[in-house]
Structures are given as structure tokens and as C-alpha cells.
């Protein structure tokens, strides 16, 4: 089945010049530290903790409802040090996740209700199944499927997962359409409508 178009209320989203679509009911803390590389969708209820450390999110990545993106930390000499967090291109993060990985590669799929604990490293082309809990410091190698509590290696992925994931996220982005040409009267500046998130 083709991805069915999903319509959103235009007044509820901020669209930037390079195609980022950020919901106004998402919370982006420390907007100066958050860098979206374009064509990224951030859905309602998402919290991105840019105030802790800088967060980079690649092209054509989608962060679904009620997910928390939180840079990871480590104790150094008694004080907490936060690491910058990198999320690659074509990454799909499901609903209700807590993501505090140190880095996430490209073409990664994270299912719904996952917990990616501190300092995890997700390489390119891997899949975390729904309801998985990855313990701290886990490394997920490319072309693997992790699931369970704690998330452990289950099986390999098809070799063409890179192309598949690219196609999938692109089609999701393209089918995420504004509802109607909304009344361009007064846009309600609820939460920092300045597109500082864009580069």
C-alpha cells in the first residue's frame, strides 16, 4: 500500500525555508543549539532538550508524537557533562520514545515506545523494534535488528535496508501535506515562531 497522505493543520506547524515542519505544540528547549538540516518533521508533543547540549538532526528525519530527545550525560569529576547529540539522515523515531543516544546513524528506524538510554551508539542502517529498552552504552552495529528488554541482537536485516528506509522516509515526508491553504490572517505566535531552528 502506498503511504496515504496525512494532512496537518497549517496553522499548527512552522515551515522553514529548507522544508522543516515543526509542530507548534512541540517543545524545543534551547533553540540556538538545535540544528535541523532540512525536510525534518517534528510532530506535536516532542521535547528536544537543546538546552543541555547541541542537537543535530539530519535531513528527512521524522520524530513522532510525544518523543523526548535528550542529549546524554556522564559524570566527570563529580559534575555532569552533556555530550552533543547527532541524529543522521532518514531516521524515523516512533511515538513515545526517550532517546538519549550519543549518536544515531543514518537510515535508522526506532519503533514506538522505545527507550534508548544514555550514551548508546546506533550505527547506520539498524532497526530497534517497538517497546525496546536499550541499556546504557549499547552499540548497535549496522544491518541488525534489536528488540526486547533489554534490547539484544535478534537477526540481520535485508541488505537493501538503506534504500528501503530512504524511500520510506521520503514518501512519508512527501505525503505529510498541509490541510488547505489556511487563512493567512493572524498566525498565533505561541512558541518562538522565529525559525531559528533552521540553518
Amino acid at each position, binding site marked *: 500500500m502506498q503511504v496515504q497522505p496525512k494532512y496537518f493543520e497549517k496553522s499548527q506547524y512552522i515551515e522553514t525555508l529548507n522544508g522543516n515542519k515543526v509542530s507548534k505544540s512541540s517543545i524545543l528547549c534551547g533553540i540556538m543549539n538545535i540544528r535541523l538540516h532540512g525536510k525534518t518533521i517534528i510532530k506535536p508533543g516532542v521535547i528536544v532538550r537543546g538546552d543541555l547540549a547541541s542537537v543535530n538532526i539530519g535531513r528527512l528525519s521524522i520524530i513522532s508524537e510525544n518523543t523526548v530527545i535528550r542529549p546524554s550525560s556522564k559524570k566527570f569529576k563529580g559534575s555532569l557533562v552533556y555530550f552533543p547529540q547527532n541524529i543522521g539522515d532518514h531516521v524515523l523515531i516512533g511515538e513515545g520514545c526517550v532517546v538519549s543516544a550519543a549518536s544515531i546513524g543514518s537510515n535508522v528506524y526506532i519503533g514506538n515506545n522505545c527507550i534508548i538510554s544514555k550514551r548508546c551508539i546506533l550505527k547506520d542502517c539498524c532497526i530497534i523494534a517497538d517497546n525496546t529498552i536499550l541499556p546504557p552504552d549499547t552499540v548497535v552495529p549496522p544491518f*541488525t535488528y534489536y528488540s526486547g528488554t*533489554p534490547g539484544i541482537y535478534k537477526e540481520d536485516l535485508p541488505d537493501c535496508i538503506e534504500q528501503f528506509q530512504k524511500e520510506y522516509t521520503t514518501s512519508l515526508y512527501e505525503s505529510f501535506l498541509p490541510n488547505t491553504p489556511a487563512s493567512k490572517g493572524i498566525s498565533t505566535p505561541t512558541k518562538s515562531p522565529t525559525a531559528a531552528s533552521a540553518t
Partner: protein
Amino acid sequence: MYSKRIENSFQFNKDQINNNIIKYSCNCGKSYHVSELYYCSGCLKTNCKFCITEEIDCFYCPNCLENVSSVEASLNGNRCKKCFDCPICFNILTYSASTNVSTGNETFFLNCAFCKWNSINSGEKEFRFDSHSIKNSKESTESQLQFNKVLEVVNKESIELTSLKDKKTLTRIKIAQAMKQFLGQQSKHQKYNQRKNFLKPDENQRWIQSSTPQPLPDNQLIPKSLSTTTTQSSASSLLLTNQMIKKSIQSQPITTQDIDDMQQKRIDSRVFKKVVNGDNNSSSDDNGYDDHDDHCEQYDDDIDLEEINEIKDSDEISNLMQRYHQVSNQCKELKGLIPQHRQLLTRRSKRCKRCDRLLVKPDINPGKIDFKRSHFAYTYIPRVTISKIQWIDQDLFQVFLTFTNPLHSYIFMSFPMEIKGSMVSLDDNSQLVDLYTNETFISGLLDEIDDNEKEVIIDQLKTLEEQNKRYFTNGGSGVNYRNGNKLTLGFIGKVGVEDALFSNNNNNTDEVTHLIIHLPDQLSLNNINDNDVDPPKFKSKFTSIKFTVVVEFSLKSTTTTNNTSGTNTSSSELGSSGTISESNSSQKTLLKILFDVPSDKFSNTEL
């Protein structure tokens, strides 16, 4: 040959309902989601997982992402030297140090960040990589030692055998290699021979979708060489010489009686025996079995039954998975579990089974995702998605298929009216009755035409397109039916399959003609127009509608300048024009696409 719908082999594809709707048939008749197939450009056919041979290119540790040479991997039992799994939850253990404040000494220990298991609490004072306990525990058990010896002998023998090449040795090579494959990983220089001589391994064993080597089997049929052969010194170190085979057959021929016995024993073993201290004979008499009981005594579980009764908290007993992870001692208490080295993963290259062409060659750097060669079906054959499917009458449905061309150049495709083999799959309950009979094209990603001839053909096809507007439609969604490298076509299908399609196909080589029922034009026109009004709802006869579409595609057009090819009437004409059509047809790839659409995916099913 009939195609069959097979459950996708990857969990990832099983999870996504979408990936179970459309499946591509491999040449062997099994059909999978397109991401699980490969495309061999030599034979212009798709390869499923049963139609490829795999070779291990490299081993790597999933945690430290370090390459491990095959020698080192087999030395360590396909496990990483540095990384450990938690014995309780199988999470990776971290190696940490704690300093004693009073003495200033550092203690190293393994720690699980998930379940808080650590090596100090489990009894070990300190954990170091040179610790003897880990080394000793590796090959401690009797069965493992014996197993290693057998493996060694078989290895040695198969190396010797590969130098000889007469008919007798060939079978021995096969046996030896089968044995090796069964017992463990092959060494690198054996790969080539293994591929040539041993193309049909036990499929069930080989194709389990994980790259960790299989757990070591505990099998009676593995030659228990050493107990019998060691008496005969060095000459008998060959297990598979003719004499040895004869001898073993003569001394202990495996008869059906033996097999029956074995099965009976298995059944018997499910009944728990009474624990009788001391006297073994009485118990064996009661159960009526013989020979093995002499040295096979009671079951482990019976022995420490007392011990188990003592346990107050059921949390102290290890579960099955935990025991399987330590085959050597299979401790029944959590306390006794020890961390295991993490199993290595592999990168594998894949070859076509038909022509031995290399299909996939991954980068050996485990952190990289590049391929040196990547013939995935996903990037070579036109991909199909259903953009819309709806009922237009009782038992009649219209389906809009979007074809995506993943290639850079134009591809030409047609829906053949007759093919060798079958047009339907075994479990089809519907069929398409109204297909576009002419050839059509999809532009590539680059969208440029490189020669004039192609341009002429495309113009011709476009005029044909104008005459057959009803196929070229996007279901009224407003988007053009040609959109970049995508093309949407609308076809009409009918629930129920003509019996003729099935009965015709007793002989696999029979040519089967696809039956086409042309619908009255008013009907198809009507339903295109009534998109904006609320469409009537229909009840579906089946919970899911299954039908098959046969597509032929090639990079060259079969349309000749005289503008008549493709239709039913001109098919004979094409055949007479000889060489051209033949060479063209050899360039074509036939795809069978199997649809299995749940009825709730229809836009107007009455539920």
C-alpha cells in the same frame, strides 16, 4: 510453475503489515517482499534466499565493531575475546574499576548496566582479562573436548582430500564437507571448493536469518571417533576412509530398529523416573530398556532434586535461555552462571545459484554500510505500490498500481497475455480481468532519452496511451499519472478465478493463455467520474483479496516502428519477424507480483 505466498523471513518485514501485501515471486516459485530478493543481471531473474549461496567475508564483534580474522574466530569459538554478555539478561557487560578508599587498590569487575549483575557479587573476587578461570572454563567439559577433537580430524581430512580428485574421493569430500559445515565454520581457503562441490546444504539449517553461527549440535550420529580409533594409532585418524566407513557400518549398522529405539527412548525420557538410590538395575528393568542405561544413569534433574527442593525463591533458578547460553555447564542456579564471550556476527557476500555471479559484496569494515556490489531487487526491478483500491461493483474492484522505476534509464514494460508457466498463484481468489495490452514505459531517475530510436518509440507509446486513457489514471487524486519515475495504472479485477487457469497448468511447461474479459466501456467510465460523490459500499466475499499480476520489463522496447506489437493479434506477426523478437525477449525479465490485499484496505468495503 505456480507461485506461492511465503511468510517474509525477516522479522522487520513481518512486523510491518504493509510489507505483507505485495510480494514478488522468485524464479523458484516462492514469493517474498521485494526487500528480501536479489536480482541477477546475468540470468535476468530474481533470486530469493534459497537461490543464493552465501560466503562469510569477515567476522566482527557487534559491540566493539572490530574485525576478527577467521582463524581467530574459529579459535575462540566464534566469540569476541574482549566483550562479555551478561549471564542474566544477555546485555553487554562493562568493564569497570572501583578503588578501595582505605588501601587505594583498584579492583576490576564486570558490571551489567541493565540488571545490575556484577562479577563481584556473583562470587568472583576480581575480574581480569588474564584470569585463569575464564580460560579454563572454555573447554572444560568432556563433550566439548571430544567435539573439538572430532572437528580437528574432520578438518584435517578434508584438507587432505581436496588434493585428490577421483570419483570415490569426491563423495568423501562431500561427506567431509557436509560434516564440517555441520560442525562448525569452514576455513577461508575451503570456501571455493565448498561452493563448487556442495551446493545443496541442509536448507533449514543454513537459512536461519541470523549471522551468528549455529549452536553446536549434540548428535549421536556424529562419529564418536576417538574412543574407537585411538586404539589403532595414527593411521586411523582418518574418519572417512572407505575402510572406516565400512567398519563403522559393519560394527554398528544403523537400522530402522535403531531409529525406532531412539524414538522410543525419547518418549520414555519424558516420563520422570523414580529416584532410586544405588540400584540402577531395578529401574532399568522396570522401564524395559537396556544398553544405554548402564552408563547413562539418572537424569540431572533427578539428582539435584533435593537441592532444588531446598530453594525457597524461584528467582534463584536460571531459565532456559540462560542455560542455553552456557552449553558447557547449564547451571540451574543463577549464582552459578558466568559471563560468556559475545558471539561474533558476520558480513556475507552472496552469489547467484544459477550462474554463480556475485550479487552482493559488502564492505568488510563493520562500521560501514557501503557495498562493493549490490544487486538488490529493490534497486533493479520496478517497484509496485497500490495507490488506491476500491470496489466498483459486487465482486468487481478497481486497483491503481503505482510503478516506480529505480533505474536511471527508461524501462519498458508490458503485461503479457501469455507466458510460460502460470498466470495465477496457488491461493489466488481473484484475478485481474482488464489489463493494458500494449507496452508502456516509465522514465528513469535521470529522465533523459539517449537515442532517437527510443524517442520515436516513446512517442508511439504515448499516442497509444491517449487511445487507452482509462488505464492511465490516478483515481481522481489530481496528481498526474506520470510523476517523475512513477507511473500509475488503473486495472479492473474480479473476485473468483477462472477454472481454466488452474486446470490448464498440469504440465509446467504448458503455455497458458491469460483470459481477458473486457468490461463495457460505460462501466469503467462511470466509475472514474463518480469519484467526488460518496461511493457506494460493497461487502467483500473474502477477508483478503489475492491476485497475481505478471509484468515483463526490459531496458529495450519490443515495440517496432510498425506500431503493432503487443496486442494479441500481432503476437504471431512478431514471432515471424524472427531474430529481433528473440533477442529482445531474452532481455526481458518476467516478474510475478502477488497481491494479498486485506479487504479493509479497500476504500469502500462495507465492514
